[in-house]
């Protein structure tokens, strides 16, 4: 018989990324410099945490586990989720996982989700953001679902639980869709899914007492050769900052800027 307490168990995957407002650079090996000290919870992951919390609240007494992977600093992303209201956190911390591509990341996260489930209550729902602002591949949600053999409802702008089914609405370039799947399932949310709550003082204080479990790849039974830079199926050959734009023009309108703009477009053969 299925264990029924808590009613629903949700894992929300979160990522610590360099602040997009700060200067971001690639290292010589093409990997992102993650040691700038100005990292933050990936913006859309705030919406993912919010969605998980709202679904948990609606289900009445559900448990939300925040899951992250990355170097020491990455635990800040999980802490933020705890401050917002998640119940516990898991941090996959292993030097051998550094440099994983999106598929390697999904492989590790899947092992962690399985481990969370193996420790007790089954996981009903995995929630993620639709993209991380560093790599911006949007591959991890669907790859994670495939690793876990879960149905994936991606890019949700609305999400609701109805008994043992989850329903999302999503807006694509060419269509608007409503999709439904039985639990367990994975949902990725867009930044229009909700307004993420801001942690209040009580939440920040409470988060200090919430457990953060640290797992290595060995704890998860992941073969280190399959992940990390060595296991990546893509390799950056060259990386360079884009040259600054030169020959730039700035005019203040004194009545004829529209005419000047038209002349500029014609002269540059842009029309």
């Amino acid at each position, binding site marked *: 018989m299925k264990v029924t307490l808590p009613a629903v168990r949700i894992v929300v995957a979160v990522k610590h990324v360099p602040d997009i407002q700060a200067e971001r650079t690639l290292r010589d090996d093409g990997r992102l410099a993650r040691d700038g000290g100005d990292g933050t919870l990936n913006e859309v992951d705030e919406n993912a945490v919010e969605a998980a919390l709202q679904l948990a609240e609606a289900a009445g007494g559900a448990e939300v586990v925040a899951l992250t992977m990355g170097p020491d600093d990455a635990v800040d992303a999980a802490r933020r989720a705890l401050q917002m209201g998640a119940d516990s956190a898991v941090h996959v911390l292993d030097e051998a996982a550094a440099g994983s591509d999106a598929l390697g990341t999904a492989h590790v996260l899947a092992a962690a989700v399985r481990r969370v489930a193996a420790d007790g209550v089954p996981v009903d729902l995995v929630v993620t953001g639709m993209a991380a602002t560093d790599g911006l591949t949007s591959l991890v949600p669907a790859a994670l679902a495939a690793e876990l053999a879960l149905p994936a409802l991606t890019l949700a702008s609305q999400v609701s639980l109805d008994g043992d089914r989850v329903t999302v609405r999503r807006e694509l370039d060419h269509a608007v869709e409503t999709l439904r799947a039985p639990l367990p399932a994975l949902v990725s949310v867009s930044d229009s899914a909700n307004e993420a709550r801001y942690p209040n003082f009580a939440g920040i204080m409470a988060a200090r007492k919430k457990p953060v479990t640290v797992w290595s790849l060995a704890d998860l039974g992941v073969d280190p050769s399959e992940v990390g830079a060595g296991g990546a*199926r*893509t390799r950056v050959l060259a990386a360079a900052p884009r040259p600054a734009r030169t020959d730039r023009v700035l*005019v203040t309108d004194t009545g004829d800027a529209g005419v000047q703009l038209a002349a500029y*477009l014609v002269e540059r053969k842009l029309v």
Partner: protein
Amino acid sequence: MTVLVLLDHADDGTLRPSAGELVALAARVSDEAPEGVWVGAAPLPGSGPAGLARVHRVAVAHDEHLAQTVTDALSAVLDATGAAVLLLDSTFENKDVAARLGVARGAGVVTDADALALVDGTVVAGKTVLAGTWTTRVEVVAPLAVVLVKSGSSDAADLAGEAPQVVEHTAAEAPGAGRVEVVERVERAATGRPDLASAAVVVVGGRGTDGDFGPLEELADVLGAAIGATRVATDEGWIAREAQVGQTGVTVAPRLYVGAGVSGAVHHRGGMQSAGTIVAVNSDPDAPIFEIADFGVVGDLFQVLPQASAELRRLRG
């Protein structure tokens, strides 16, 4: 080397413009004519697509819009052809497909590529990263390369021509735990403007429009442009969500970008910074978009845009 191209199409069988670009790109990088993959029951365009050696049409048992269905269909064709390179348009739907192929077949995946080459049988893709501020070249080191190519990265092949040979396939049904069900799907009607993601010219409105896109529509008519918007403008409900240009919306890389009343928040810049020429009109001289604009006008868009539209019409006679 055989390059497979997924032929994205509307429900009535109309090819997406990106399909022609992918066919042209595939033809350029390989010495063999590319082969297309057509998923589902929509009718193949009668007069093409040209330039393809063959089209693999795959019958599917489930809704053809689902990533799992498309993945199973592509797997069937990959099995049958042994192809090592697959090109997809870089849409969010196709990213789900590519991710699934990565897991199911060990493929190496590159998203948002803007260039492609085969170097001694190895796939090397170009892409810009970190909000368009860095350019990279990425090599795929797996036996199967799945490359998602940004629309607008390549000129389109002329898709009119003799219809290629059609090879029929049936996708094996992947053993499913729970399956996704399409409760409702409404395809958007054509707007009469080019596709935002692939348009050569894009006119974008932000907070400064205060909800009035009239002057932008007029300029877009003159320029043959697509219309986009910032997140503020879509959040305000001034324009549909799919018009949002930015890191979590549509990424555009047009030849000409015109931003009107757009401040240039980093979110937005991440979706447009690779544009060839950036024009900005904003009443705030401190707007960050002026830091990247090739031609910036500090002024009232409701004055500047109509004047520019009128002058362009006059110059063209």
